């Protein structure tokens, strides 16, 4: 796997160029301030210790030193504030682009939403340290040591040589040899600590363990597994930590060497105290940016990983989109003509031809995996058929702009979502200026009105995160109300009554069939209660359309529908 920063990310980085150069420039000025400070400090110490000058005459130097301190404080404040701003524009831009891309792709690819949300938030956030810390630090890593070397060279060529040799060796050993290993190890260590996968597994299964009387045994196992993790990980860390020893080795050794070599020359009076002391003051500063580099190096690693995730989303192809408007008509008739769909080479639907008559109720039944949900997603326009066509009043769905098709549609998915906002806002999703009477009528028809009125804030009750304050059946009915409120010409419901108790289910179905209003309705059924009311039933098996007809017609002939119905009867108490 390539461990380079994606060049497109560097292009994104141009948006932050101003702030970035600004913070680098501030860092450089501050580096020269450090050198100035060392010069004054060395002069002061020399004056005090060697020329026995009293403090009052040194006041101008002391004042100069204090002024430099203030300057450095101001510079470091400005650099930090600027660096934290560097990335804001990049982050906002990337987040908007990612979200737009995800919407353009549609729900075809069912990615894990928590992970994708993490890419949008944490992934984009992980770019921050790269632009705001790592890049400026890289610049300082070159500029500060060079500036210090430039000051040291005229003072003492021996110390210059020591520093010159030690400096490049550190990044050589750390970055090229060891740091990659250390960062990888560190990541593994973090993961082991953070995930605690086994521990979570045990906590999740605690009730099961108790029921088998095994909960106490698990204590030993937790201790043992933790111990194994510790041993294998420490083996890796023992080598990885050598890299931090390398930095200490060169930095400490260089300082010790500078000091000892100076001592040998000073004692023979061959050298002045001032230049020697100045070099000793500068030597630790020479290694400061390198230490910073080590700290920020793993920012680069996580940026590479984050960039990979981000561009994986941005690079995923969006399906082709139609551009035509859906022709206006009173009713909508949908025809599937030799419709096939394959996913990763596996045929999910094969050669399905069926008609969904305008204003009628069609129910699709079949075992799970028969292709019911795929058929619904094709009708919704989320998927494109691999062969065959879907004709909407004779128009090919592939040529109709999705937005135009969706305006005619209402949809109740298998697990409907409630969005942050009030109950009313959720029913009025996509209908910003709808009047309340229409929402109330929709709620009533969806058997939701009574429980909404019983809520503390009625229609204004806020919806908790993920609809946490509503039961599955309630969410289902709110979604149904949302669909009814649209007065759509086509309604597609996916196993919409799965989590309702039998009484509510019957009431929901009564309302659905009683007030059809010319809406072409397609229901993917889990149980047969709804099929009995259908104008037409389609029976799918292993991706093929096996039977179609009314409940009575299908019961009269031997076939998969009659088997399904018999199994249902046998199970009914």
């Amino acid at each position: 796997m390539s461990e380079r920063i994606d060049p497109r990310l560097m292009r994104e980085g141009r948006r932050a160029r101003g702030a970035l150069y600004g913070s680098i420039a501030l860092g450089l000025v501050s580096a020269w301030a450090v050198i100035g400070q060392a010069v004054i400090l060395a002069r002061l110490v020399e004056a005090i210790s060697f020329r026995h000058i009293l403090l009052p005459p040194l006041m101008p130097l002391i004042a100069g030193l204090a002024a430099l301190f203030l300057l450095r404080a101001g510079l470091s404040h400005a650099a930090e504030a600027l660096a934290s701003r560097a990335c804001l524009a990049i982050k906002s831009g990337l987040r908007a682009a990612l979200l737009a891309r995800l919407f353009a792709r549609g729900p075809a690819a069912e990615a894990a939403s928590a992970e994708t949300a993490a890419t949008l938030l944490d992934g984009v956030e992980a770019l921050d340290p790269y632009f705001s810390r790592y890049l400026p630090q890289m610049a300082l890593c070159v500029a500060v040591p060079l500036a210090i070397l430039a000051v040291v060279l005229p003072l003492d060529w021996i110390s210059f040589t020591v520093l010159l040799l030690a400096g490049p060796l550190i990044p050589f050993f750390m970055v090229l040899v060891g740091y990659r290993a250390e960062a990888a190890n560190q990541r593994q260590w973090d993961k082991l600590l953070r995930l605690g996968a086994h521990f979570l597994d045990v906590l999740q299964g605690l009730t099961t363990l108790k029921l088998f009387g095994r909960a106490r045994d698990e204590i030993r196992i937790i201790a043992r597994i933790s111990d194994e993790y510790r041993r294998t990980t420490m083996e890796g860390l023992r080598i990885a930590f050598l890299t931090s020893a390398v930095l200490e080795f060169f930095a400490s050794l260089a300082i010790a060497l500078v000091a000892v070599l100076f001592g040998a020359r000073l004692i023979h009076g061959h050298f002045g105290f001032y230049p020697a002391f100045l070099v000793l003051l500068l030597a630790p500063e020479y290694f400061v940016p390198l230490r910073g580099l080590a700290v920020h190096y793993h920012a680069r690693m996580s940026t590479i990983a984050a960039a990979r995730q981000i561009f994986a989303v941005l690079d995923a192809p969006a399906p082709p989109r139609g551009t035509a408007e859906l022709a206006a008509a009173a009713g909508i008739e949908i025809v599937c003509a030799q419709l096939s769909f394959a996913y990763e080479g596996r045929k999910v639907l094969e050669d399905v031809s069926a008609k969904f008559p305008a204003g009628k109720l069609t129910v699709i039944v079949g075992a799970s995996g028969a292709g019911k949900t795929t058929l619904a997603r094709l009708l919704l326009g989320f998927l494109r058929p691999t062969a065959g066509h879907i004709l909407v009043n004779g128009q090919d769905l592939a040529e109709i702009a999705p937005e135009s098709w969706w305006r005619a549609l209402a949809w109740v998915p298998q697990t409907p979502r409630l969005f942050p906002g009030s109950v009313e806002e959720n029913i009025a999703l996509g209908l910003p200026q709808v009047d309340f009477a229409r929402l109330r009528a929709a709620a009533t028809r969806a058997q939701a009105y009574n429980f909404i009125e019983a809520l503390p804030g009625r229609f204004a009750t806020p919806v908790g995160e993920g609809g946490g304050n509503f039961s599955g059946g309630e969410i289902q009915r709110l979604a149904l109300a949302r669909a009814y409120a649209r007065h759509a010409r086509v309604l597609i419901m996916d196993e919409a009554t799965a989590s309702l108790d039998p009484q509510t289910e019957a009431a929901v179905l009564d309302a659905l069939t009683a007030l059809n209003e010319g809406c072409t309705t397609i229901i993917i059924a889990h149980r047969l209660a709804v099929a009995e009311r259908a104008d037409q039933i389609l029976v799918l098996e292993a991706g093929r359309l096996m039977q179609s007809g009314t409940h009575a017609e299908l019961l009269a002939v031997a076939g998969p529908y009659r088997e399904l119905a018999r199994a249902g009867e046998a199970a009914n108490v």
Partner: protein
Amino acid sequence: MSDIWRLVRLLAPRRGWMLAGLGLATLTVLANFGLLAISGWFLAATALAGLAGYAAQNAFNFFTPSAMVRFFATLRVGSRYAERLVTHEATFRLLADLRVWFYTRLEPLAPAALQAERAADLLGRIVSDIDTLNLFYLRVFVPVLTAFAAGLVMAAFFAFFSWPAALALILGLALNGMLTPLLTARLGARPGAEINRLTARLRAEYVEALQGLGELLVFGAAPQMQARAAALNDELAAAQARMGWVAGLGLALSGLAANVTLLAVLLCGARRFEEGGIGAANVPMLVLGAMAAFEATAPLPGALQYLGQIKAAARRIFALADTPPPVAPPALPAPEPRGYGLELNAVTLRYAPGAPPALNGLSLSVPEGRRLGIAGASGAGKSTLINLILRFHEFQEGTARFGGHDLRAYGSADIARHVTVISQRSHIFHTTIRDNLLLANARADEAALWHALEVAQLAGFVRSLPQGLDSLAGEGGARLSGGQARRVALARAVLKPAPWLILDEPTEGLDYETERAFLRDLLPVLAGRTVLYISHRPAGLALMDEVYTLRDGRATRRR
């Protein structure tokens, strides 16, 4: 702070490792301090000897200080390496201890304490809270105590030459390591909370948008959602910019504190030298020492941030660990049941005092060997009935007898010996299929395992796997389909021949066909056992001798 103190006492059994890491960290800081201070003195002393002429040069002991310079440099390298090894080793050991401690505390509470609305979130939070607590040693304990220990040693060294210099150093270290971070934390609290709040909202917004992508598109609500996310993101950016300003201020102030201390130490040293109290070489020594001293306090701003997170995590973890168990363990050993009949008479169970009763005067009789079905809408008390029988929750009124004894005489572990549960929530562990089965009966041999798989109609599937019984079941049973996971639970029931079998919505979430096949294979497992079958789906209830309907916490006979 008492939570932190409690955490320290909890970790105390590992004090050997903890103190070793602390000692090495202190040594690392002191080695650097020693290296620079001695180097400063050495330079000045050799220069003075060099100026004083031959006699002084020959009298000067060059060897000892130069050896000390080399010694401190070597010590620094070695102690840095050892410190990292030892602190990480200690962190791992502490983590194991913390997990075991917490598990031991949580075990009697399960599942009552974990049955919150969002159990998955709760468990995830527990695991990350424990990990956060574990950072206490590495990120708070070591840096804070190192700063104190090293700071005291360095100040004591300074005091040897100049009391005011020592005082200035202590003051400077406190300003740099404590006051400035505290000020920054205080100024940053508002933008920090704002960032947390906005991040959480933005995350919720993204998750909702992604999970409801199709609905937002179909309902034409995508542009509004994008606009809302963009507005939240702008707010977040503004809060982050404010935070950056505060962080910059903290950085500037702590740098200023260190520099001012340097100047103060220089002036104190100069004054003392003028008075003749110390030699000329001591002044550069103090200056370089003061420069190196601030390494001790450098990690403290980070430690303060961690401390905030750790306090919050400790509060949550200790609150959970201190929850009293919902069922007091029986004082006497549980009696041996005489038969396996269950008699409930006017039992009322409330989950909390004052809460509406979940079981309201429930009377139910399950004679030994009988198969009883319980139907009822969600919220009618079906799960509560199971919690009652399994002794997961205490009942308040009425009488309950199991095997001829008061139900209260049994703890949940005692009941578990007589009861097997098959539930949609039966957990499949992230380990091999074999281990998942052995859970039910540790002594089962290979033949018994395969027999159980045969009965559960899972043997063919397991045989088809390349590693057979030793195949991983996957995280949360993810490699098994819903029907297969239920069959693993069935196989466990075969392996554990307990006289009672409770089936808790065993076919929930399965489609029609799968349910039918599951029930067919369930029949032989029911033979000879007392069965309680709880479901709102009719198919399984048809296999029962009697069926009751639960409504509002009361049972009425249906068939």
